[in-house]
């Protein structure tokens, strides 16, 4: 009995620890960004200048860069991950091959992001450059679009796995009922499976979006790192995470450092909101 209680106490303790840790991170971000919040106030969210030499800081280019790359990458991801999850859970009857394929997809998710970034810089961006030459736009290769492509490669395995899990949650009776009524595979998918699991798949996309939002290393290598508002999807830009990765180590002035931390705070809040949203949606799917 006593052991039981001790064990329960231990579990409670680690649970509380997580809460302390999370709020600790949040609070330290807030405290460290106080100088910048005091100096720029709400203007920080609307100013587009980032000038470390003259200590003028604003988050607009990075919020736009982050939203743009995440949204474009999500748009690219949706058709691919949807078809992968449908194929794996419904069409591929051979369980062994399905298992192998799924493992391969999860392996992609396990590739370190710096490796994907290198691949993007040396293989993908020359390829994009050729397309840009054909389109008659400045052939810089790197930029918002290349970063979005890289991001979508990184989040497809993620959303495909979630999609497959959600689809397999659909009760067999429902599926069998539809088939016994003479529905084709496609009709089952359209009429039964997708409506049934829509929320879950959507939630998976939201979580993937959150992942794309915070991705740092791979994006830094292919986005062009220009602290300006991008003018087209091919122009160079900067995300919040890559800005921090770039400038944090050598930011010595108090204002520069605290502005970078405030960017981190914004990133933290937005990613947390996205994650909560995704989880709420997924929870609603439970049968």
């Amino acid at each position, binding site marked *: 009995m006593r052991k039981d209680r001790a064990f329960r106490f231990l579990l409670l303790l680690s649970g509380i620890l997580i809460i302390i840790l999370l709020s600790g991170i949040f609070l330290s971000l807030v405290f460290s960004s106080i100088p910048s919040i005091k100096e720029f106030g709400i203007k920080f969210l609307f100013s587009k200048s980032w000038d470390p*030499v003259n200590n003028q800081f604003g988050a607009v280019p990075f919020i736009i860069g982050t939203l743009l790359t995440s949204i474009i990458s999500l748009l690219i991801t949706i058709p691919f991950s949807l078809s992968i999850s449908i194929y794996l859970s419904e069409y591929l009857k051979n369980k062994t091959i399905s298992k192998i394929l799924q493992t391969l997809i999860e392996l992609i998710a396990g590739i370190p992001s710096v490796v994907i970034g290198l691949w993007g810089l040396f293989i993908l961006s020359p390829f994009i450059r050729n397309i840009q030459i054909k389109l008659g736009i400045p052939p810089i290769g790197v930029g918002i679009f290349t970063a979005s492509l890289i991001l979508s490669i990184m989040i497809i395995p993620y959303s495909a796995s979630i999609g497959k899990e959600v689809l397999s949650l659909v009760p067999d009776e429902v599926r069998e009922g539809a088939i016994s009524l003479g529905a084709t595979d496609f009709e089952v998918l359209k009429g039964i499976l997708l409506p049934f699991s829509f929320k879950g798949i959507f939630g998976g996309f939201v979580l993937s979006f959150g992942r794309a939002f915070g991705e740092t290393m791979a994006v830094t290598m292919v986005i062009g790192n220009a602290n300006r508002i991008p003018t087209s999807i091919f122009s160079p830009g900067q995300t919040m995470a890559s800005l921090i990765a770039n400038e944090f180590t050598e930011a010595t002035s108090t204002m520069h450092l605290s502005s970078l931390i405030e960017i981190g705070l914004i990133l933290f809040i937005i990613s947390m909101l996205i994650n909560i949203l995704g989880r709420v949606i997924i929870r609603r799917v439970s049968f």
Partner: protein
Amino acid sequence: MKKLVLFLLLTILLLGTLSTSILKAQDEEITLQLTIGLSSYVLNGKQFQMDVAPEIVAGRTFVPIRVVAESFEATVEWNATLKEVTITQQEKIIKLRIGSKEASVDGKLYVLEAAPYIKSGRTMVPIRFISEAIGLTVSWDSKTKTVTIKGKVSSVVMPTSPVELLGAGATFPQPLYTKWFDIFYTKTNGLVKVNYQGIGSGGGIQQLIEKVVDFGASDAPMNSDEEKRAGAEVIHIPVALGAVVVTYNLPGNPKLKLTGEVIADIFLGKIINWNHQRIKELNPNLTLPDLKITVAYRSDGSGTTFVFSDYLSKVSETWKKEMGTGKSLNWKVGLGGKGNAGVAGIVQQTPGAIGYVELIYAEQNGLPYAMIRNKSGNFINPDLKSISEAANVKIPQDTKVSIVDTDNPQGYPISSFTWILVYKEQKYGNRDLNKAKALVALLRWLNSEAQEYSESLLYARIPEEVRKVNLENIKRLTFDGKPIK
């Protein structure tokens, strides 16, 4: 078995020569001039003050012992009950007694012609006897009534037990530091081990301010804000030189000639094509293509950007106004690459691109780089010699000086020091004297023999003049207010 013995013998011999070479490197020529009746004296060409002037008593010149001892790094002890003065320099021990003509050198007795005495609280001693006893040469100029004392001081400072020093900072000199510290470890027979973390100049300064390291390292001198936060005097010691080169991607990669103004306008987005008149004028022999210029810069905060922008701010008013000097800038045009590799990647992949990287990186990766016109109007190719030359100018005692746009006609204009930063007062945190000694030994070595290793790793040596300034600054280090000996 024989071979093994031979090998061991050779190793011991080698180690022996190595450790003596480190001692030799510390030998220093010292000249001290004292004039009768004058309370100022000249040490190595510099004037200093003392509170009691030398005088002639009973036909002998008497000087305050403290001045001589400190100049030649001897120690003086005073025994108040015996009224005895003990002077120790290296292995020699000299004993004198106030009011007594007897003196002893290493236990051997001598008789003086005049006895030491005390004047205004200072012990006065017959200078010729003392000097000759510790192996210095003394000459007398009867016209100016000046005594000149010359001698070599091998002021070896070594810790007495194994010490581990911790340093952090700039990544630019890291390969050189790693090699240096490795050699130093061998040369001190494992006595001084140095751990260096290349976390960036900003981080190095931060850690020094937080007093968690024994030394910091930076590609830029500390600014006034950082010095204020440090709270105590920090000594800057430049130990190597680097340069930033302008690299490009043009058909055939010809050797370009550029000026600071043109580089500034290219990186500001004012010159946007390679066939621009101003580039053509500088390179009349080249056919420059009709190609759009793509600017590549360092997206991560870096000393390289600092040096590059420091140079452009000096040569271009527009740059100074619109961009300024810093480790991260508000770039108007172009693409940012992370690290030297990121910039080089963009330049190599994009036809018509131009960027800036460290010379070492360009050399190691076979990138083309431009000759740049210096202040004197000469187009200078960046190499170890022209970089060293850039530093071969008059530099202030605190060495916190930018050598970009150098006055030296043979100097490459985008060169820079990389500094090691140490607190003048070495007693902080829970550091002991031994650590301070190890640090002094290391700093001295870096300013002597270590320089011979720089060039093999493509770092330029610091000029002789700068080394002298450094050695003087190192002497100013104290532990608990006292010089470190």
